[in-house]
């Protein structure tokens, strides 16, 4: 699962920074059928968590109501330099993860 994650590389301590996440995933609703008429089982990314230096700052629990290739934006407070880690898992058990470094000045 390819993912694009936008995290500002530099920030000042105390800044509110926007994190944007876009993951390539069909977010299959379970209501569609393939060309042979057989139902395509529901398969959505049901959970995505963002941890900042090991501490969970944001979590999303999603259903089939989220569009294909889910996009999320949220805000975190820049505390100290380190790493943002994103983990997600879909209904079929396929997990993905991504990390981004952040440099905090001040």
């Amino acid at each position, binding site marked *: 699962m390819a993912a694009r994650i936008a995290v500002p590389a530099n920030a000042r301590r105390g800044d509110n920074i926007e994190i944007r996440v876009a993951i390539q995933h069909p977010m299959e609703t379970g209501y569609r059928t393939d060309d042979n008429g057989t139902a395509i089982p529901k398969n959505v990314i049901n959970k995505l968590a963002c941890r900042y230096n090991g501490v*969970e700052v944001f979590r999303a629990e999603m259903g089939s109501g*989220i569009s294909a290739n889910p996009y*999320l934006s949220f805000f975190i407070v820049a505390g100290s330099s380190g790493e943002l880690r994103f983990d997600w898992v879909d209904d079929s058990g396929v997990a993905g993860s991504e990390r981004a470094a952040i440099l905090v000045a001040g």
Partner: protein
Amino acid sequence: MKSFFKRRLVLARLAALFALPLLTLRRAHAQSEALDAMVAKITGGAPLRSGRVKLEIPVLADNGNSVSLRVAVDSPMTPASYVKSIHLIAPKNPRPNVAAFFFGVGAGRAQISTRIRLSGSQGVLAIAALSDGSFWSATAEVAVTVSACWDAS
């Protein structure tokens, strides 16, 4: 005898005329009951107040497969007063519970943006759970031209 049947026919038609709006009313009622149950699951029976939540979503959505929205809650986001979670409900979707977002200590703003699917025109509901145990909400009506779930994309 003939007039009796005629009279009965007229009565039946009249009854049908009155029953129709009653039926639709009942359906609307059942839907609001289902919505109440969903809300109660989130609030745990606590009162849901309107306000403090801003739900930005287009009034007219061309494509129900992808409707972008932003939810922002008026909160200082300090350890003493913060938003615990934001819940999105689309009552007319086959699965109305669209998503829930949870904020940790390091979350700077009680704000999220995402894109959702909408199965037809409806009032989208956003509920915020605050750290003091109160629940706030906002509703926005969205007219959907092409519903999600109809075409195969």
